[in-house]
């Protein structure tokens, strides 16, 4: 695989998906803080669903960040 130009992402699609997941993780953090501050605003979602969604989101973000970080450590220069 050729080196990406300096400043350009080497795996744009993977990094884009990872960025979206990370933003969703930060939004979920805001949701948790909102639920602690104003419980009535978040009670309409079942707690089991909230916990399940948070676990799936965090696991997906962890997996994607790990994958992108691993790919970036691989030497892609020819020879």
């Amino acid at each position, binding site marked *: 695989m050729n080196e*990406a*130009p*300096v*400043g350009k*992402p*080497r795996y744009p699609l993977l*990094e884009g998906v*990872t*960025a979206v997941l*990370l*933003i969703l*993780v*930060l939004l979920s*953090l805001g949701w948790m*803080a909102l639920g602690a501050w104003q419980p009535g605003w978040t009670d309409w979602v079942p707690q089991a669903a909230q916990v399940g969604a948070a676990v799936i989101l965090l696991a997906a973000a962890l997996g994607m*960040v790990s994958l*992108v*970080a691993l790919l*970036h450590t691989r030497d892609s220069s020819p020879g």
Partner: protein
Amino acid sequence: LFYGFGTIAVFGIIASYHGMIFGASRQSFALGRAGYLPAFLGRVHATRRTPVAALLASSLVTAACVVVSVWYEEVGTVAVLVSTLTALMWYMLAMGCLFVLRKREPGLFAKYRTPVYRVLPVAVVVLAAFAALMYTIINVKVIPLTALLYALALGYFWFWAHRRVQQAAPEELSARRAPPPPQGAPR
């Protein structure tokens, strides 16, 4: 299933201990060699070239916490909580350094690009700050002790160590040898 998971967890903990012994000793060795910590930590064995002093120092501190926790159970818990809080502070400071270096020394990043730049470092800062904020609610008692340790370390560096930093240490040489920013340097 319970005992099976426990067995797997024990093997994982043993692997973590080996990693911590290696990492903690090499970290204090490097800081001792550079002058940020007492110089004796930066010495190596004459023939084996291993950082014996740093290994012993980090092992003794850990062993002392374990032994004292036999009589005072909360010592181990406090040690873990303090180290976790300092790790959170370190995550935020490291990301801050990344943003500052990106502006001051763009040449350092000529051949390395932070994956998912800006989103990932910002996420690290926000998550670490959120976790540190939880300490003020859940584990507020460890905050004064952590602040005291930081104050002691900063006082040691300010009044003693910063005049004795070894300019020839590999870390200091690398910091001074940053290449000039090339054309089209990453943001």
